[in-house]
């Protein structure tokens, strides 16, 4: 078991957002999480990544058998958890190269490895840029600064490729992408798939799941996973919307 979430409750400023989430993810699997706006999908991703604005009030999260909730954000990242942000953040004046080098080397330090020599690092950058079809110019610019919506999303996948995570959580990485970009992003994700890692994609659109075929689809509704199924569930949701699930739950 890679990730095991049991009865997870989380709140912000005293307002409960997650109300007992249960989720199990094994290596090699792809999970899709769907659900109406504002039901807590991004919150779940943030809590797994360790964002401290959220208070975990109940429940447990085991990752590789260890208590994930005890680890600080950067340790979780170095342990292989990657979050593709729904809204990637701009960091003015910090070049992508410098940002990635810092990230790669801090993760290596965590693992007791020496920093990657500059030449090797640059070669790695080149290789991964090609994989997600990112132009050289983008990598020389400041982190996400002035990037278009689609470029920001591609840049998330580029970072994922650089960091080679064990558990990737991609929060609406497909929204705002044109058809070509969607294909590129999905191809990137598929190329990075292996029996040793797992992917959780949060999405509103069945379209993405044509490219990244999930083993499981979950519906998060009002802070809980209320329905799980195979990839057919996504098609059903596309067709019927969420009303029938609401009706079933209430």
């Amino acid at each position, binding site marked *: 078991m890679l990730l095991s979430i049991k009865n997870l409750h989380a709140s912000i400023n005293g307002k409960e957002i997650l109300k007992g989430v249960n989720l199990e993810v094994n290596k090699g699997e792809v999970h899709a999480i769907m659900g109406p706006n504002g039901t807590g999908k991004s919150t779940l991703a943030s809590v797994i*990544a*360790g*964002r*401290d*604005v959220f*208070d975990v009030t109940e429940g447990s999260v085991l990752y590789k058998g260890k208590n994930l909730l005890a680890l*600080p*954000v*950067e340790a979780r*990242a*170095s342990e292989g958890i*990657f*979050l593709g*942000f729904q809204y*990637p*953040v*701009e*960091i*003015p*004046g*910090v070049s992508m190269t*410098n*940002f990635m080098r*810092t*990230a790669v080397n*801090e*993760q290596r330090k*965590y693992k007791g490895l020496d920093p990657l020599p500059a030449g090797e690092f640059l070669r790695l950058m080149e290789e991964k840029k090609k994989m997600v079809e990112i132009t050289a110019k983008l990598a020389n610019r*400041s982190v996400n600064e002035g990037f278009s919506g689609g470029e920001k999303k591609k840049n998330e996948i580029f*970072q994922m490729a650089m*960091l080679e995570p064990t558990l990737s959580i991609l929060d609406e990485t497909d929204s705002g992408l044109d058809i070509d970009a969607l294909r590129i992003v999905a191809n990137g994700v598929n190329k990075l798939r292996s029996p040793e890692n797992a992917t959780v994609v949060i999405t509103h659109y069945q379209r993405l799941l044509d490219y990244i075929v999930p083993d499981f689809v979950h519906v998060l509704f009002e802070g809980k996973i209320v329905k799980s199924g195979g990839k057919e569930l996504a098609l059903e949701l596309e067709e019927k919307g969420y009303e029938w699930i609401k009706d079933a739950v209430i």
Partner: protein
Amino acid sequence: MATDNNNIINEVTNSEYKYGFVTDIEMDQAPMGLSEDTVRFISAKKNEPEFMLEFRLKAYRKWLEMEEPTWAHLHHPPINYQDIIFYAAPKPKKELASLDEVDPQLIETFNKLGISLEEQKKLSGVAVDAVIDSVSVKTTFTETLSKYGIIFCSFSEAVQNHPDLIKKYMGSVVPYSDNYFATLNSAVFSDGSFCFIPKGVRCPIELSTYFRINAANTGQFERTLIIAEEGAYVSYMEGCTAPQRDENQLHAAIVEIVALQDAEVKYSTVQNWYPGNKKGEGGIYNFVTKRGICKGSNSKISWTQVETGSAITWKYPSVILLGDNSVGEFYSVAVTNNYQQADTGSKMIHLGKNTKSTIISKGISAGFSENSYRGLVKISKNATNSRNYSQCDSLLMGDKCGAHTWPYIRTENSSSIVEHEATTSKISEDQLFYCQQRGISTESAIGLIVNGYAKEVLNKLPMEFAVEAQKLLSISLEGSVG
């Protein structure tokens, strides 16, 4: 838990000064306090010609009539000028001809700071005029420089060997009566650097001086004079770190720059005087008057500063744009942490036609500190078609610090354009989380974000300085997290 994040920022910004240590060197010092006798003692000690003593005495008498300025956004206990030793010099054992003869402890001090003279000499090609406790101990590369006719030596040496140049230029940009602290300096200045680039010469190396305060209770009164004749160019770097102290130490320096026609002077500073401890005890009081004059047409003076130290900084590097088409620039990053206070900025005085000036100021405040930008852009009646662009950004870390901006603009003709932009931002929790999620520690993340924010200014520094300055920015804001 937004407060958690503040706590992290608090922790991160609460690190102790890393360069605190004291070197034990035999001192040769003036009696405590300030009087006409002190002034005469200093002048005699330095074996100065009559005109220097007169200059000092004139300044001293003026100073007695002046009052300490109170307009800056700074708070400190009154300075007792009778409680200060105004002159201290390491006793030279003999004439110093080579590095071997320099006090080994001194060399060790430099090594601790990572500034080995030997290394500097061999590796970087930087001529170093090391000022320890007010007296220049060692000057390197003077021979190379003298081939070009460049004079780079201590101020005292210049007084002895080039009195005509000193007479002509000293006080011509910052008059002895300029302001309280400059007048004090004019009366009691101990030493400093002198640099003269003759007509048409491009100085082939970056000139640098390391200053360091070293004696307990010793005021530090440096005086620097840089002259670039017609068509000359020089890039001058000044940097300093100081040992940890309990008492406050007064520092009132003067830097004067003269650029004649077509000349260019770049003056870069990394200032890292002891800022006091976390509680705001101790630390240097840094009252500096830096001013340059673009005397000839098409001349250019730029000030670039990275200010991370001192308990109190009072400093407004300025340019008088007298020559037509002359250019003045000011690029500054000022970091204040704990209880540090900085009131800094620039003055651009446009007198000539088609003169241009740029002010880029980046303030970073953390802890309980106060960081103020104070600037004056004055465009006089005759300075037609002149331009100024000012940008003052403030970055706040935590919610207990302050950032203030006081831009003064006076325009006396309508053909000139003055633009001013100001922003205030915080290191956002989003940015920190984004970095951390990639495996970057809070400390490194703050280092990255802050250096990114200051990049525009750091880019203006000479290579040798830029790396040091980046480290310094991170160090002054880092702490022990986790």
